[in-house]
């Protein structure tokens, strides 16, 4: 096992390939470089999304007009939703950490199709540019919400086509990443890396990749149909020509519900790596966690209708969708129980990633349990399309995926950059961020239960109190975010050189130098019978 730190030697960050400088990055087929490209581009988009979120909260500080008019507000939440969903959390963990770490974790030197991998990133960039075009050119920023519901989506006079096309291209990028990962996991494992020895993060990527592959094309074709509807009036979703707007919602959610599991599964995988490492203990119920991953991926296909309980579906369909929704929550519960049991009798080393992991479990529980409220028919009729839903999905998308993202970046940071961050600042950032988070989204549960609809530019005075608290929360949280970001950026350049295995983990990525060399391993690794990702002493 190499013990050297490679910050000053040759590694994937410094090597000189066919091209120099920036080109050496944007044309590199090295999975780690592509992972970093994703990290940077996603972070940029993420900051844009955050600014839009803050602007919305600012607008909602008081009833009536605060800083923007209604049209701008509608455009703002649309763009905020599109950016956050399609450009940040869907590619988030798989494209960033999947690319950076997965091949090393399975003992491969790269993904199965490195060129395709680069193409995926380029498509991502192309998709982003197309969506940005929709913002800047044409008759105004799209204002349909990220759901593009028909018939409004072909009635609105705003410049929707580039946004739709952009979302389509982003989907294609996501499909290709999924395809690449599936083949990699099937074919590139090193000798001895049996399916039952795969790290759980890799298993979740596997489940995610299947969803990406099988669900994304459905939304692709749906968006194409909306575009054709706008261009040629083919009538498929236009009630005036016999189309059924509810069918649009079916197709949209057939993708978008599984998509929420694209967002959360890799997050769960990252947490399943971090908890054993910092507990220095074998993960509790390895096979149960795998089974729950696969069943989330599968049952997740069958519950999309819970977004449509008030849409005018048949009662029979509502009944089944509600039932299945409850069933899909069981595997998530299993995971939570196993994580907590892993801590039992461990030897817990409390470090920044572990703080994030523990707070992840908490916010994920709140988000998930509020999902159960939404899954129940009577309760959803009442709170559907209110601030309650907004609270649910921020808790789980951003609380879940976002917290796991931060856990993961603090966990793998020393490996990725070969340097260590300042732990004290990282912990302060975490604390401020978490407090801000709770203050920002908890009031929305209350507002929703009082009946405040979502996507409301203006609200009645009775909702004022909750909104003020929520807006203050957003400011606290952004403070925390800035602390974290500054700390990480500074440390990536100037931090102390990191050890090869600072957390004493057992997975393969911690056996290679930090940062890893170009082809990852000097000699092809192999696993003996006793080796395993969680076999601690």
């Amino acid at each position, binding site marked *: 096992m190499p013990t050297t730190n490679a910050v000053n*030697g*040759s590694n994937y960050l*410094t*090597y*000189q*390939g066919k091209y120099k400088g920036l080109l050496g990055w944007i044309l590199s*087929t*090295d999975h780690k470089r592509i992972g970093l490209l994703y990290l940077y581009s996603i972070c940029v988009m993420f900051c844009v999304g955050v600014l839009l979120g803050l602007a919305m909260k600012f607008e909602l500080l008081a009833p009536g007009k605060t800083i923007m008019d209604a049209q701008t507000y509608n455009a703002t939440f649309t763009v905020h939703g599109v950016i956050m969903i399609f450009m940040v959390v869907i590619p988030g963990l798989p494209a960033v950490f999947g690319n950076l770490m997965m091949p090393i974790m399975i003992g491969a*030197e*790269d993904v*199965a*199709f*490195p060129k395709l991998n680069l193409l995926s990133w380029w498509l991502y960039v192309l998709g982003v540019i197309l969506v940005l075009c929709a913002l800047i050119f044409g008759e105004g920023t799209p204002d349909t919400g990220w759901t593009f519901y028909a018939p409004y989506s072909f009635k609105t006079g705003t410049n929707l086509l580039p946004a739709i096309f952009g979302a389509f291209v982003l989907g294609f990028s996501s*499909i290709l990443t999924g*395809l*690449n990962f*599936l*083949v990699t996991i*099937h*074919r590139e494992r090193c000798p001895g890396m049996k399916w039952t020895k795969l790290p759980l993060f890799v298993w979740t990527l596997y489940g995610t990749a299947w969803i990406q*592959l*099988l*669900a*994304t*094309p*459905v939304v*692709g*074709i*749906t968006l194409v*149909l909306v575009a*054709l509807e706008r261009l*040629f*009036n*083919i*009538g*498929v979703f236009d009630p005036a*020509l*016999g*189309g*059924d707007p509810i*069918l649009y919602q*079916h*197709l949209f959610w*057939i993708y978008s519900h599984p998509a929420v599991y694209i967002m959360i599964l890799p997050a769960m995988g990252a947490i399943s790596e971090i908890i054993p490492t910092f507990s220095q203990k074998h993960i509790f119920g390895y096979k149960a966690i795998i089974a729950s991953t696969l069943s989330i991926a599968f049952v997740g296909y069958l519950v999309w209708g819970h977004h449509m309980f008030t849409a005018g579906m048949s009662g029979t369909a509502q009944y089944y969708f509600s039932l299945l929704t409850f069933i899909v929550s069981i595997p998530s519960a299993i995971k939570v129980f196993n994580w907590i049991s892993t801590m039992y009798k461990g030897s817990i080393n409390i470090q920044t990633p572990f703080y994030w992991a523990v707070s992840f479990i908490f916010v994920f529980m709140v988000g998930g349990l509020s999902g159960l409220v939404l899954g129940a028919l009577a309760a959803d009729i009442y709170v559907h399309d209110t601030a309650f839903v907004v609270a649910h999905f921020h808790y789980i998308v951003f609380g879940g995926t976002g917290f796991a993202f931060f856990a993961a970046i603090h966990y793998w940071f020393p490996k990725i950059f070969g340097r260590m961050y300042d732990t004290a600042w990282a912990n302060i950032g975490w604390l401020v961020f978490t407090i801000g988070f709770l203050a920002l989204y908890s009031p929305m549960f209350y507002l929703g239960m009082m009946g405040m609809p979502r996507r409301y530019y203006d609200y009645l005075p009775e909702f004022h109190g909750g909104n003020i608290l929520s807006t203050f929360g957003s400011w606290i949280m952004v403070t925390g975010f800035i602390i974290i970001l500054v700390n990480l950026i500074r440390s990536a350049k100037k931090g102390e050189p990191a050890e090869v295995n600072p957390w004493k983990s057992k997975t393969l990525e911690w056996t290679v130098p930090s940062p890893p060399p*170009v*082809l990852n391993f000097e000699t092809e690794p192999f696993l003996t019978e006793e080796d395993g990702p969680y076999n601690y002493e």
Partner: protein
Amino acid sequence: MEEHVHHVEHPDMYDPESSKIGMWLFIFTELLLFGGLFLVYAVYRYMNADAFHLAAEQLNTTIGAFNTVILLISSMTVAMATTALQKGHKKIAIGLVAVTFLIGVGFLINKWIEWGVKFDHGIWPGSEHMLETMSQGEILFFGLYFVMTGLHGVHIIVGMIIMGYAIRGLLNGKVNAERPSLLDNCGLYWHLVDLIWIFLFPLFYLIT
């Protein structure tokens, strides 16, 4: 800067199994892409059974059947090309792929004529003729007809482009009995196109 000029070329990673699974996975996404459209078709057919019935009668079953037949033949020829390559008969393989390509051209010409006739009758997406004389169900039928056969046509074109690459590979020897993946995948893709047509044909032309 000796250090940095480390050789980073990836070693030759040719793995036929990988590219085969890769192709299958891609086919799965294509199936679900069309799957979405079949779903739309199923729903609207259920809601407008009679109108679909009426509208389908306006399609020319003979042209449809002819296209089915030639597409099936082309599927066979491209499959045979694989056998030919495995047996080492490179020339036959090239010939068979070329025949497949030509059949693809034939299919498109047929489709073009068929669409042309529809256009002459004033039937195209959003046309006035349709809006004025047709019921909602018929409008939906033709909307779907144009979208689905159109998308299928796009896939034919993509398949032919891949065939072009396969022929080039065969000619310059990059595709050979040891490395047949490109030809195999080209075949797989073409069969997918065939598979979809197998369902489109009865759904649009036969159910009258």
